[in-house]
């Protein structure tokens, strides 16, 4: 059974190759010079074969690849179907739904420029995300532990929560010395909101008994916050950070309206104005992949910190 599963992605690849090779293209789509989708399938096929071999050599119980196989198979099947309805039969409006070949050709041919875009965005995103998480955790802890602080901060959280990032732009332009700082602020703010809510909520949900135990053991207020409050609220904090990670990418699009010279959000906005949707999708794919990598990294960090958690949150 597991053995069979491993072969599914390869099957799906072959099917996709067959469809792309033998069905005629719709004349509505501008053809690309190189058949990038075929190349992509070829590379995937090779990767899959290597993995099947590795899984079989391993001889241990956890066949990693077999586990992920159905997912890859369906993913490629979906690409295949999309290829059919776009490049092959043009069932969807051609301008909005370019062929996979076109999207990949953008990624490959524009790769140098896209790389600089990704690099600028990464700087922005990293700075904003880091500041937002740190500020959010600190505010969350303060709000969670201190009634006075929570009295003053809660209305702020409620007022800022629903504000669209674009609403901040005039203030940001006035307050911040550079537009880079302004963009960073916008991203940080969007991350700050969920991180604060979740951290504060997590702390207020900690059974009081843990603090009581700590205090009878001689822990001062400060030590209790550090060694009881924070570890106990950690799972919640991570949920807030995950939420914030998603939102930071969304906000990137707005943050890059603030006089940046390049960046992936800026690229997408620009290409969208020109109705160059192949480029827009290329940008979105890059965003999705970066987000995936960021989430994987966060998972690693979380799994290391939360070893004590048995039924760990997984999404």
């Amino acid at each position: 059974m597991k053995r069979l599963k491993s072969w599914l992605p390869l099957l799906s690849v072959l099917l996709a190759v067959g469809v792309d090779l033998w069905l005629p293209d719709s004349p509505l789509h501008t053809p690309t010079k190189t058949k990038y989708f075929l190349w992509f399938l070829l590379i995937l096929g090779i990767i899959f074969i290597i993995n099947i071999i590795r899984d079989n050599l391993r001889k241990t119980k956890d066949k990693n690849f077999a586990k992920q196989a159905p997912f890859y198979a369906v993913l490629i099947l979906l690409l295949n179907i999309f290829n059919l309805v776009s490049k092959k039969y043009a069932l969807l409006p051609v301008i909005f739904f370019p062929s996979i070949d076109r999207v990949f050709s953008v990624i490959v041919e524009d790769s140098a420029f896209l790389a600089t875009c990704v690099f600028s965005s990464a700087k922005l995103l990293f700075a904003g995300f880091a500041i937002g998480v740190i500020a959010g955790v600190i505010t969350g802890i303060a709000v969670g532990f201190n009634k006075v602080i929570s009295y003053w901060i809660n209305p702020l959280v409620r007022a800022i929560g629903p504000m669209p990032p674009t609403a901040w732009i005039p203030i940001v332009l006035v307050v911040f010395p550079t537009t880079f700082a302004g963009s960073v602020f916008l991203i940080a703010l969007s991350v700050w909101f969920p991180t604060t809510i979740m951290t504060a909520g997590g702390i207020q949900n900690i059974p009081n008994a843990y603090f009581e135990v700590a205090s009878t053991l001689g822990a001062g207020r400060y030590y209790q916050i550090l060694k009881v409050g924070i570890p106990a609220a950690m799972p919640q904090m991570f949920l807030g950070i995950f939420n914030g990670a998603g939102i930071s990418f969304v906000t990137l699009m707005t943050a890059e309206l603030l006089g940046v010279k390049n960046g992936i959000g800026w690229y997408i906005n620009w290409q969208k104005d020109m109705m160059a949707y192949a480029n827009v999708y290329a940008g979105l794919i890059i965003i999705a992949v970066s987000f995936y990598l960021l989430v994987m990294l966060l998972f690693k960090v979380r799994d290391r910190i939360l070893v004590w958690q048995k039924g760990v949150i997984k999404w």
Partner: protein
Amino acid sequence: GQQSKDTAAENNTNDDNFVLKVGYSGSLCEAPLHMAIEKGFFAEEGLKVDPIKLAPGTAFESISSGQTDAGFNLMANLIQPLSNGLPVKLTVGLHTGCDKVLVPNNGKIKSIEDLKGKRIGVPSLNSSPIIFAKRVLAAHGIGVTEKNMEVEFVVFSDSELPLALEKGAIDAIADNDPVASIAADKYGLNILADSAMDAPYKDQYCCVAYVSNKLLAEHPEAAAQYTRAMMKASRWIQAHPDETAKLQVDNKYVAGDAEKNAKILKTFKYIPSVQKAYDSFTTVAKELQDIGMLDKSVDINALQKNSFKFFDDVKDE
């Protein structure tokens, strides 16, 4: 304000129940569309319209997906999307003017030449203001191509450009009305270049009316009626700029002050022309190619032919 009285409706519409969905964005120079509704030019043609206010940056998406049938936009904005397959046809040019290059009035930048090495804020990287700015710069010998870029263009959202200028994040603005005029007025900015005033731009068509390919296929007569009504409205505006500005503000098509708007409107020339728009298209497209904003491989003549629709019964005066 949708017109309901069907006066001369019987003309020759094959489908009495057809309602044309027209997208508009609420900018000042869109006046022909507003006036065609308010002054009954659509009704005169026997056309029922449903005006749809579009948010920034969604005009092309809407018409491509059939949410709207016809629209109104800057010609320079349309050329790249058309080369990317935007399924619309231009039908007539409506007016000239409306792009400006603005600098602070502190006198450090006095001429176009002074812009060399400076940062110019634009609302988007492919709309008419940047194209106009690049054309002007190129004409003054400042490099604006990918390989020889002697200025820096940075994007800010339209309405925040003046603030960015004031805070020194940029040294100049290239933008169109109404933001350009409001900013110039409120901050007393100097106008370095104005497509409504300076030759040769003042004779080139800025805004054009267009219809979707779908409309042309299904209701060609409605497309012609739309075009004619827009032309009539355009001529009427040229004669009545003050009344136009007042109607626009009173009926909430545009914000602001009627008197000031009228002053701006008067700088545009509302002389509709099919032929001149057709001719402008190649000029603008060629310049776009020269300044590296349109792919060199695009066959401009083919694009031009493919992008226009002439109606037998729509003629320049």
